[in-house]
């Protein structure tokens, strides 16, 4: 596979609780530890017994057939849904009592499968909203235009342009977010998520709707973001060239359960995964 050039040859080492983290992250606390996480919707177990550990700078992949519960995992991690089972820890902090807002403040940022930008605001304003808890300025300083307001506005503007430059989007700062082309909207969502200064970035199908060239660029950028910000990234993706190309550790979900975990090589060779994607061999022959 030629796409593999984006991935460093990572040595995966065992971590307590039967999980693996990259060797380089061994001295650090894992950014995310989920154990036996699960949620039931009226008896249906949408996600069940989800246990995963992510190293400080790991790029992880979450794959599986449609309806496997991948986005539900993201919704659990960001507390859009309250898990009914299990525990989650963010750098050793228990996330049990956190709300979506707390989770964002604690350091998990996400993008959405169906893009959720603030369409009527400009690109810059979208990123500034991501900076909401990074560069602060109270209501009264804002209304009275205190020096603090001008300082905060300037800082926000500079930081926004800096972040937009990751994807060469600084020139679009004054465009209406809703009028951007699809690919640019996806990239803007990533920039906006990065603005919240996350420790863990969750990307829900970042390459959806992108052409192979754009996907290639995106892969470079995801690796670049990880190296530059030294954060962990967990992504859901159907484009296997991207997943196999940049993910160091992959987790396969089917019917809400983890059916396989391992490096891209291990996953590609795993019979359970092949079965989940292609069906049983016998059926295929019949």
């Amino acid at each position, binding site marked *: 596979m030629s796409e593999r050039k984006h991935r460093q040859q990572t040595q995966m080492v065992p971590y307590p609780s039967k999980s693996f983290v990259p060797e380089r992250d061994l001295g650090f606390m894992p950014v995310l530890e989920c154990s036996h996480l699960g949620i039931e*919707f009226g008896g249906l177990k949408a996600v069940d017994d989800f246990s995963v550990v992510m190293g400080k700078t790991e790029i992880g992949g979450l794959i599986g057939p449609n309806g496997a519960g991948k*986005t539900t995992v993201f*919704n659990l991690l960001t507390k*859009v849904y309250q898990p009914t089972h299990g525990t989650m820890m963010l750098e050793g902090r228990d996330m049990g009592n956190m709300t979506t807002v707390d989770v964002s403040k604690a350091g998990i940022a996400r993008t*959405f499968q169906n893009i959720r930008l603030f369409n009527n605001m400009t690109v810059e304003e979208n990123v500034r909203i991501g900076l909401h808890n990074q560069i602060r300025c109270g209501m009264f300083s804002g209304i009275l235009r205190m020096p603090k307001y001008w300082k905060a506005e300037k800082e926000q503007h500079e930081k926004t342009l800096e972040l937009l430059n990751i994807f060469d989007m600084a020139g679009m700062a004054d465009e209406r977010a809703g009028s951007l082309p699809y690919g640019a909207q996806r990239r803007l969502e990533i920039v906006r998520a990065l603005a919240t200064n996350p420790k863990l970035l969750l990307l829900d199908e970042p390459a959806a709707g992108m052409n192979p060239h754009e996907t290639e660029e995106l892969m470079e950028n995801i690796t670049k973001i990880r190296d530059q910000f030294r954060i962990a990234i967990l992504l859901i993706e159907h484009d296997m060239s991207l997943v196999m190309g940049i993910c160091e550790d992959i987790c396969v979900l089917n019917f809400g359960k983890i059916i396989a975990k391992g490096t891209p090589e291990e996953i590609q060779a795993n019979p359970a995964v092949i079965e989940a994607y292609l069906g049983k061999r016998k059926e295929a022959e019949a």
Partner: protein
Amino acid sequence: MVFLSNLVNGISLGSIYAIIALGYTMVYGIAKMLNFAHGDVIMVGAYIVFCAAQYWNLPPVLCVIAAMLVCTLLGITIEKLAYKPLRQATGLAVLITAIGMSYLLQNTALLIWGANPKVFPSLFALDTIWLFNGQLAIKPETLITIAANIVIMTALTLFIAKTKTGKAMRCVSEDRGAAELMGINVNRTISVTFAIGSALAAIAGLLLCSSYPQLMPTTGSMPGIKAFTAAVFGGIGSIPGAMLGGVLLGVIEIFGKAYISTELGDAIVFAVLIIVLLVRPTGLLGKPIREKV
């Protein structure tokens, strides 16, 4: 005896609320909008009955049928002209349009019939029933209202459960997109819903003005809002909920007026609404909805 008399009046008033609430609850369940003008359709219905009885000297049955016809046409027209173009618009736009529609009906009525209250004629030529040696008086309007409520509730429940149109309504209320894919004519189903709701509004108008015989252009708005309260109270989208909510609300209002304060009667009803929405936003018999992410 005063207690019993209040109870009967409460159930009677509540039955009117229940019939109005049906219009709200069906439209809310199927078109997912608050038809603010529904209360004013009641008022139009009452004026039609008034005109039919007073000026054209029609027999009571024809008065009611005339009012139902006019209201049905009115309901369908309102939906086609004002709400249908806004199917894809924000909830804010739809609600503002509905408020505009409500004002339009009120002010048109004001121009046609004037601001002076009309004394509504008594259509039911029956005697008051005296119980317990003449201590408890039950007016014929009261009994007819309660009976009408029960008949309408039963008929509507059967209609929704048994007929093809009823099934289509349930489908559209559950998932409009899927219903359309299954070949259900969504626009027609919504029109039918408005038609039924408006026809019921005409009956509600007649019953309301029979019990409280003062007819003005604003007659419908307050009962309309209270009936919406009743629909929310019982659980919006639920027909038995509308009945339960309506009757409970009517009883609460009459008792509030009798035992707490006449001036605060409306305030008490609205306080009930607020408490219900805070404690149980889905109402007594409603189902919770989950937002998809």
